[in-house]
């Protein structure tokens, strides 16, 4: 899969820092699951956090904290929460446990359907699937706030070029969309 449209670097930095609301984190994690080059960049960005952690001022732990840790280390681990496999990339699977076929589409205009994917966080942002019929023009629309659009299947073209599976359109009202063109691969 050749990914040609990547998120803005500041978007990847927000993901690395962990400050995104769940819907945005899901879109970026799904994109990264589809993009090895994107995962390489994410590793580099995580190193910023690693360096900052190294430099962090030490705040003394309470007495007994180490004992508590060593005692807890003896306890058996809880079983890991396993995400069921599905026909979508793993980070998206918990939101579509029965795959894309289970999506409940709502008509949203000619050739356009939407399927809301509920998230657990209480943010005002929203995660959804958007289905556009083949051959339909994708309208240019103005964006209120940040909008991340990841192509799962099919393709579309806009003034930024052709978007295929794994590609992401990272639009923001404040910043002109700027695809990152520095991928190593």
């Amino acid at each position: 899969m050749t990914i040609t449209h990547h998120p803005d670097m500041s978007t990847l930095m927000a993901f690395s820092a962990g400050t995104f609301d769940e819907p945005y984190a899901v879109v970026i994690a799904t994109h990264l699951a589809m993009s090895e080059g994107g995962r390489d960049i994410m590793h580099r960005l995580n190193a910023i956090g690693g360096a900052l952690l190294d430099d962090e001022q030490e705040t003394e732990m309470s007495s007994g904290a180490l004992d508590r840790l060593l005692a807890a280390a003896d306890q058996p681990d809880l079983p890991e929460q396993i995400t069921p496999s599905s026909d979508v990339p793993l980070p998206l699977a918990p939101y579509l446990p029965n795959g894309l076929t289970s999506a409940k589409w709502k008509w949203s205009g000619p050739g356009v359907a939407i399927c809301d994917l509920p998230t657990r966080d209480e943010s005002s942002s929203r995660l959804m699937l958007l289905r556009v019929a083949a051959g339909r023009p994708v309208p240019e629309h103005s964006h209120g706030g940040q909008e991340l659009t990841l192509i799962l299947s099919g393709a579309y073209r806009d003034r930024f070029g052709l978007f295929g599976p794994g590609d992401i359109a990272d639009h923001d009202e404040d910043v002109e969309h700027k695809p990152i063109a520095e991928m190593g691969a």
Partner: protein
Amino acid sequence: MKMLNISPSLKWEPDCICLVAVDAPLSFRSRLIRTLQPLFGL
């Protein structure tokens, strides 16, 4: 790498399916319809 594998039997198979995150919770649909209206003469 886990690839997206969509069954060819799906009737929207040639369609474009996107995963979208927006931070305008209620207005997206109305905004989309608003932008679609002139295109389709609704």
